[in-house]
């Protein structure tokens, strides 16, 4: 399945494998991160991990196939293969960071809130005493992004 592109032989099996790698990882990113705002990401993202491993294998396969078929690797194969591997490795690396260092919490059920001061998003000073007389769900979160 060789075709000439810019005077270089490009193997279309290799190109297909490389594009498959890119689609596998890009598709995971889109689906996975679309679930983040609703807090619906899976606790064990098995499918996403399998797709990342598949993306890496497809990229390696693409380069290997292309080398074997034409003795070189064309840019149109390298580019999607590199993107596929890069994004797959980044995704897997992000997953390794998922654990939080819990265990230092200074309050327990039954305790009073520790008095604190902060500022609202409107710039108004806020004191924890303002919460007295109200039922509150106080959430610590990582911040907007």
């Amino acid at each position: 399945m060789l075709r000439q592109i810019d005077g270089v032989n490009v193997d279309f099996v290799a190109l297909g494998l490389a594009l498959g790698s890119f689609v596998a990882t890009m598709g995971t990113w889109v689906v996975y991160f679309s679930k983040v705002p609703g807090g619906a990401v899976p606790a064990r993202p098995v499918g996403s991990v399998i797709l990342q491993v598949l993306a890496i294998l497809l990229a390696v396969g693409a380069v290997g196939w292309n080398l074997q078929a034409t003795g070189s690797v064309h840019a149109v194969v390298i580019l999607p293969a590199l993107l596929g591997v890069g994004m797959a490795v980044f995704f897997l690396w992000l997953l390794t960071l998922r654990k939080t260092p819990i265990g230092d919490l200074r309050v327990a059920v039954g305790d009073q809130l520790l008095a604190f001061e902060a500022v609202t998003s409107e710039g108004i000073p806020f004191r924890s005493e303002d919460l007295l007389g109200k039922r509150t769900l106080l959430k610590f979160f990582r911040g907007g992004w």
Partner: protein
Amino acid sequence: MTSDLESYGVSVVALSKDTTEEAAVHKERDALGLMLLSDPKLEVIRQYGVEHHKAFGFHTTGFIFFGIPLDVRPSFQTMAIPTSLLVDEEGTIVWIDQSDDYRLRSDNSLVFDAVRSAFPTAS
């Protein structure tokens, strides 16, 4: 979620390391109907022992195009561990939920179970 909690008289207050300006951008962008508090010096976060030192996260400077943040920058920053505290009218903590996996949040049904058991009478 916020309006469902309101039927139990529970209001949501969310605190992060974001500056006032970042919190204002976040609140407007996501049309959040809750109170956002800023703790950029991590004073409250450290006071409560919910500090995640040098966590990897994404940060936007607020350049938003049709609701999509275009200037999203990855970085290592110290931030809060996702933690929920349910507090009654006297300021007593009646329920705590903390995530050992920052990707996951307090399950809504868990929150409502806690609210219902702490406040059997809707206010």
